[in-house]
């Protein structure tokens, strides 16, 4: 078989690809921020909440971690309007990503929190720190430092998983790629370039996380403390 590569078609559409990549970045970064907030609240509830709350959080985490992301997206996008809640494709994608990352993040933070020696927590309480202060300063901060690599790789997984939100018509990088390949009939060129863009975004985010780690943990008074 013969196939002549024509990459000039791709450059003609670079603006569309850039817009798609930008939506992927925005969706992922927003989902990460909100998801981390969800995860922190859930991790606190799991570590210090009353039993019914702990069970609820456990049910949420297990339900999300043991079902496919695609199905979660379909449920948000196709079921909520049936219940009278209007939600567009980007909102549905973001909501599903937040819920998904929240569950994985809870589990990752729990592992970090469990690694904190109990004596350290008791010492903080004995020194007069409130429950919340103890959680934030004595448990959460060192826990995040411990599980930082797991959190950042979970984020990369989330960003790559965002490619499936094209199925509900959110116009992110994969959706743009699918549209362009189906209208220009140059699938290899577009999928190659799109793969390269995903790779670049992953490496870029890894660099950002590395820098954030350095800022948060490696310098200033906290760097010497934890």
């Amino acid at each position, binding site marked *: 078989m013969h196939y002549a590569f024509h990459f000039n078609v791709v450059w003609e559409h670079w603006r569309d690809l850039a817009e798609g990549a930008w939506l992927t970045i925005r969706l992922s970064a927003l989902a990460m921020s909100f998801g981390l907030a969800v995860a922190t609240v859930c991790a606190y509830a799991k570590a210090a909440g009353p039993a019914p709350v702990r069970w609820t959080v456990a049910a949420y985490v297990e339900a999300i971690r043991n079902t496919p992301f695609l199905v979660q997206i379909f449920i948000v996008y196709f079921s909520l309007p049936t219940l009278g809640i209007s939600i567009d494709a980007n909102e549905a994608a973001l909501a599903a990503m937040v819920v998904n990352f929240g569950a994985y993040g809870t589990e990752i933070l729990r592992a970090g929190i469990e690694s904190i020696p109990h004596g350290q927590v008791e010492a903080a309480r004995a020194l007069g720190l409130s429950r919340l202060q103890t959680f934030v300063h004595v448990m959460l901060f060192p826990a995040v430092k411990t599980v930082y690599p797991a959190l950042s790789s979970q984020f990369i997984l989330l960003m790559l998983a965002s490619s499936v939100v094209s199925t509900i*018509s959110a116009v992110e990088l994969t959706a743009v790629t699918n*549209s362009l390949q189906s209208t220009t009939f140059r699938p290899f060129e577009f999928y190659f370039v799109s793969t390269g863009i995903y790779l670049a975004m992953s490496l870029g985010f890894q660099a950002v996380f590395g820098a954030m780690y350095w800022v948060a943990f490696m310098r200033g008074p906290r760097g010497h403390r934890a």
Partner: protein
Amino acid sequence: MGKYLKHFALAFLAGASVMMAAQSASAENTLERILSAKKIRVAIDVANPPFGVLDKNSQPDGSDVAVARQLAKDLGAELEFVQVPSTGRIPALLAGRADVTIASISVTADRAKAVMYCNPNGALSITIFAPQSVKITTPADLVGKRVGITRATLEEATVPKMAPEGTKIVWFDDLASTTQALLSGQVDAVAMTAFAEKAVSDANPAKKLENKLLVTTAFYGPIVRQNDFELRQWINTWIFLNTRNGNLATIYKKYTGIDLPPLPTF
């Protein structure tokens, strides 16, 4: 980290070079290979009623599937189905995963730049339909409405051109998602083949779906890779014979419920 990056880059390059190598290694033509291997790989889309569906036993069925079965039988070759979504009908061919795509792929000038069409073996029309409550009587009524279409279909090639500015076109990857978007109210109307419309309407009588606009009528035919002239010629011969003996008309009538219009040739 640096080491992983290097491995990744190497794997990526290796994959790319395998693909480059695959395209240069072909001494015998596709028809010769099919005949000597006694096997033909046909790309079909089984999410596109009534042309391609999965029956109760999850076996491929539909008019495209029936055509493919008869064609393979007359060719004396074992039939291997390559199931693809609508967006994969041309890529599967270009990637060499299939020898021919028989998936009601309408003849358009743009597609013919990427693949070669055999003579048409059927016809279809694209319509816009919506629940009774949605008022659409002329194309101008589409302004402000969300219209769902499926990627890599005839509707993707035609609806954006006929819809006036201000129409909110929403793209989905497969017919099932487009259909679900209409049923759940995520879009106001959808465009698909008149046959798919009938299947969706019959399955959801409570939605009171009705036909609003005819977008276009087109012929569809099998496609092969550029330069596979021998295979194309054999398929054209087969289409000629099966038009004459009524096989194509029988298959079309059985699955679509309407008579096959006279088929043009080119």
